[in-house]
């Protein structure tokens, strides 16, 4: 499951975009944290796309050691059982990833500018 933690930021952004032309320019988009849960030997759903500056929280709910490891080595997060760690994305791209310990566990993160 992916959970935007900062919905209020999104709502604020929507309100600003709907404001009259005379209103102050919209503030830069604030970063959002999404959660990807590792459970039952699978990565849970990832968000359709995230943006540069956003963060993925990896939440290992299994009793096994896992990792979230980018195929291109852009990130490599080792997740002990019940641990949760974060990866912030600074470069746009499509990141295929898997668990180093369980190669059948795979996923993809799409990062937009």
């Amino acid at each position, binding site marked *: 499951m992916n959970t935007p933690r900062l919905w209020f930021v999104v709502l604020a952004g929507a309100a600003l975009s709907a404001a009259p032309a005379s209103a102050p320019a919209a503030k830069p988009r604030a970063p959002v944290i999404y959660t990807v849960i590792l459970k*039952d*030997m699978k990565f849970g759903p990832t968000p359709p796309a995230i943006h540069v500056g956003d963060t993925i929280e990896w939440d290992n709910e*299994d*009793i*096994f*050691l896992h990792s979230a490891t980018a195929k291109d080595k852009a990130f490599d997060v080792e997740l002990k*059982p019940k641990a949760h760690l974060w990866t912030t994305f600074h470069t746009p791209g499509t990141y295929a990833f898997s668990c180093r*310990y*369980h*190669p*059948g*566990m795979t996923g993809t993160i799409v990062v937009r500018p």
Partner: protein
Amino acid sequence: MLLKAFGVAAALTFTLAAPAAYAQAPNDAQIAHIAYTAGTIDVAAGKQALAKSQNKAVRDFAQEMVRDHTAVNDQALALVKKLHVTPQDNPTSQALSKDAAAKLASYAKLSGAAFDKAYVTNEVAFHKTVNGALSKTLIPNAKNPELKSLLQTGLKLFTEHQTHAEHLAAGLK
């Protein structure tokens, strides 16, 4: 060697998946014992591989087996303690242990690529057998919901192990 491994796997399949051989289905204490025994066997096989193999892919797989099966068995021990259940030895556990001991002795005589192939081939057969037993016999007969849940977690894990072992075996050919 391949035929021998297959023969043992076939025997275990019959033993584990043929409840008709018993007067009644295994109870939770017997199921816990069988699952724990299977995990212990694979940990021992993994440790033997770590002691003998120089192949990185085989060693990585063996470490995965030791780590994951130890984790499941630790969880199983905590569960039976919580439930005040004493795992009960039974003919299936005994057959598993006997066959595993024979295999360890047999593989101890091998080295290099011959050992790697024998170990990985057996891992494929072993996980296939245990997964069949879990899905057809152990999980359906488990009464305690927490035990059933742990067995289901084990099945997901061991299915991933079987896939990993099959890919590894294909790469060793």
